[in-house]
């Protein structure tokens, strides 16, 4: 039987359509995915993300361990509560997963994808070798709620006034704990908001209070269209173990300095850079009618009569832009236009630099 989060009954109460997601019974929408999407862009929405995997890494070797395990450098986290987005790479420079790491009292907290949980934990354990003072502890008793949108933070403070001391003054990509709760100013929507880790037994009442304060319950469907508009990668679609971060618009997450930090995958990435990176991840805006979907072929004119080929990695209809948008991996030399093969028709599209939308507004030219 599929696993259920502590909010399962609340989802059914809110008329969720439930689907299987990586072995979890999760809400895809509560009636209209587009309405949920718009609520987050215009007001506030909440997402049950309790299926995600939380792992605490404690001990005096934690920093050394993560400096080897992750492509980004946890030494950049100067203060407690600061967070970093990073790839975890294999030896070939392929992405095993993408994750957020927070600096905590005794070490670090990682939040990784649920679909990759088993292989992530195996990889993390396999690489413990050589580190004596280190513990990895999964925290399945913590549920997690993302509250997102321009009104999200004020709604959270409205229903939980005592949280203001933890929330006020939080910078983007920073978190603070209060009692057994942890409030982080992070998200996957391109809007302001919080991701809140909550003891399982306490999340249902919090959800109820937010719902009564008019915060829209949102499913995985809206989560996907929001993150795509925000130009944020989805593991398994936009990158995987066969794709290097250099080909997934994740170059900014690789900490090359200090040059003697031997993180896993570094040699492969340096060799790839020296040889010339073949592809890039870009945004596409469809000029004609239709909806781009993952795995559709992208046809590119590389000049001198040369044709190149790429692939849509994530595509959808954008509720904010009222048009189809996509992320696509295309040859490095791709210019400003291309064609996408949509069900046998070649439809013109513009190539843009990600993202499409930030804070409710279109941001590309």
């Amino acid at each position, binding site marked *: 039987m599929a696993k259920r989060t502590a909010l399962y009954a609340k989802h059914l109460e809110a008329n969720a359509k439930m689907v299987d997601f990586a072995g979890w019974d999760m809400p895809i929408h509560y009636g209209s995915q587009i309405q949920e999407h718009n609520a987050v862009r215009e007001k506030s929405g909440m997402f049950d993300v309790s299926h995600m995997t939380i792992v605490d890494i404690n001990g005096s070797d934690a920093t050394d361990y993560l400096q080897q395990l992750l492509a980004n450098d946890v030494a950049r986290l100067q203060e407690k509560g600061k967070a970093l987005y990073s790839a975890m790479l294999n030896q070939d420079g392929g992405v095993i997963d993408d994750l957020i790491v927070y600096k905590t009292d005794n070490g670090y907290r990682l939040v990784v994808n649920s679909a990759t949980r088993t292989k992530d934990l195996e990889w993390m354990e396999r690489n413990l070798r050589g580190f004596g003072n280190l513990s990895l502890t999964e925290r399945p008793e913590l549920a997690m709620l993302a509250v997102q949108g321009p009104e999200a933070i004020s709604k959270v403070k409205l229903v939980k006034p005592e949280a203001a001391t933890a929330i006020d003054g939080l910078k983007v990509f920073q978190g603070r704990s209060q009692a057994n709760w942890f409030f982080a100013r992070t998200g996957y929507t391109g809007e302001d908001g919080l991701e809140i880790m909550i003891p399982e037994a306490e999340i249902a009442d919090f959800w109820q209070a937010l719902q009564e304060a008019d915060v829209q319950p949102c499913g995985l469907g809206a989560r996907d269209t929001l993150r795509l508009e925000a130009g944020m990668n989805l593991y398994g679609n936009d990158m995987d173990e066969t794709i290097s971060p250099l080909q997934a618009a994740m170059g900014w997450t690789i900490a090359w300095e200090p040059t003697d930090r031997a993180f896993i995958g570094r040699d492969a990435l340096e060799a790839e850079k020296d040889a010339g990176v073949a592809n890039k991840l870009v945004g596409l805006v469809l000029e004609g009618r239709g909806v781009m979907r993952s795995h559709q072929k992208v046809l590119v004119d590389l000049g001198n009569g040369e044709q190149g080929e790429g692939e849509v990695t994530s595509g959808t*209809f954008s509720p904010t832009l009222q048009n189809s948008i996509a992320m696509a991996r295309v040859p490095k030399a791709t210019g400003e236009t291309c064609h996408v093969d949509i069900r046998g028709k070649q439809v013109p599209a513009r190539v843009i630099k990600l993202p499409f939308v930030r804070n409710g507004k279109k941001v590309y030219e």
Partner: protein
Amino acid sequence: MANVPADLKYVASHEWIRTEADGTVTIGITDFAQEQLGDVVFVELPEADAEFDADAECAVVESVKAASDIFAPIAGKIIAVNEELVDAPEKVNEDPYGEAWFFKMEVADAAALDALMDADAYAAACEG
């Protein structure tokens, strides 16, 4: 539970068929189908005068989630298409049996209509 009007005919690919007084038929997709698709954002209709065999792909409906083919439920010729759907695809979710009709056909063999599912048979097919 999805709405399945008793006065319509149905096919397993989730199109409904209404026989008009003049013997032509009007075709759309069912409430069950629109619910499965989720928010509809794009509709591609057949050309007027095009002729189709039964079960031939003749239109496309796309939701935020996925693209889905619409099939001619019966052999015949397209005599009208609902152009308003192109600009207001959300009508497929709001009024699947009314404003959101897709196209009208002149049926090649009226007897073929008798072989289509009635409401009870279609409702049972959806349950299964």
